């Protein structure tokens, strides 16, 4: 079978590496300024051809290179997991201000959480005619999303779905509350006078 991405794999990898290097650059800059690493971890991937074919079909698109690269935007996927809430916004700000990076779509699911409690900042950008999806979130949001995903695909909870959905939403709202408190504590500590000892 011919590659769904055609001859574009190298370009996808190049753009992904470019974005990762830019994220690394703001990460180092912030680390120097604040003495704390703003990024807990950063994941990246080129969507597997199998998943991409499946997604084209699911979205009712022809399974073609054009669909994979220009109709769907997540051939390149990057997830930046931050320690603190404000770091998410600082890194987002940096990415969207890059001169060669066009913002195609921006969704703040942190301020406007999804009804199930899901929180994350979603960006779709275009660099050198190549789309990439970047998700930014805090460790708490990432932890929540991992468990929610697990629960969603676990089959033997039928009948208890409503209870789990409601409880997971409550957990998301508690974590969101804690994220805000932690940010405020961090800011408050940062304002204390320097200890010269």
């Amino acid at each position: 079978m011919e590659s769904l991405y055609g001859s574009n794999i190298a370009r996808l990898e190049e753009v992904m590496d470019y974005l990762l290097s830019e994220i690394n650059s703001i990460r180092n800059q912030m680390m120097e300024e604040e003495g704390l690493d703003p990024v807990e971890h950063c994941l990246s991937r080129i969507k597997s051809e199998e998943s991409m074919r499946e997604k084209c079909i699911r979205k009712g698109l022809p399974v073609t290179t054009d669909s994979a690269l220009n109709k769907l935007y997540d051939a390149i996927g990057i997830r930046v997991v931050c320690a603190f809430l404000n770091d998410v916004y600082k890194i987002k700000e940096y990415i969207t201000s890059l001169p060669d990076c066009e913002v195609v779509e921006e969704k703040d699911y942190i301020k406007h959480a999804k009804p199930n409690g899901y929180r994350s900042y979603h960006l779709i950008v275009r660099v050198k005619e190549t789309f990439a999806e970047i998700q930014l979130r805090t460790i708490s949001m990432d932890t929540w999303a991992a468990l929610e995903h697990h629960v969603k695909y676990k089959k033997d909870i039928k009948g208890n779905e409503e209870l789990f959905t409601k409880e997971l939403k409550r957990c998301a709202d508690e974590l969101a509350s804690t994220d805000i408190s932690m940010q405020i504590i961090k800011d408050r500590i940062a304002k204390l006078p320097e200890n010269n000892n």
Partner: protein
Amino acid sequence: MKILLVEDTKDLNRALTVALEHEGYSVESAFDGEEATDKIMTNGYDVVILDIMMPKKDGIEVLKDMRSRNVVTPVIMLTAKAEVDDKVLGLDAGADDYLTKPFAIKELLARVRAMARRKNGYDSEMIEYGDIKLNGGNFELSCENSVILSAKEYELLKTLIRNEGKVLSSDYLLEHVWREDDGANEDTVSLYIMYLNGKLNGIASNVEIAGKLESGYCI
């Protein structure tokens, strides 16, 4: 709602049971103080109606006993004498309300309703202010989306909303929200105000708490 009726006079016990059941309450009866204590320690009730003058163990003893074992169920006591000392003794022992015999059944029913209101009022209180909703049942603060507040954050926000437009000093807030928590000081208040403003912003609300540590806070 489940009521325990402790009254040793059989006819009166019967008459009150019928009246309360007619109102839709589920009623259990006890005819002396010992039976009352046994039932209170074994079962859960929403309200206890407690006669003072009883064989074996009087109502005051029953009351002191249950309170010393941390049973906080609201108690309405029934006193035979209209003497002030009796009422004071009962209220100090932990009663929430009293009725002097003879009383109209209508009045007892009204007092039971008032008691139920007070109890439910705290549990499921829903406060709306500006574009926000504050749920006393689960401490959920919501606007476009929601966060769960801590107990102190909830109390603090509720106090500010209840005193809408008034500037409340750190001392006032410490006394009304933190009460006997000795570790809390005005920096604690200032930090909690910042938490609340952060969370109000986090749910995309327009509500903001104004003020400073020196001048006090206002919603």
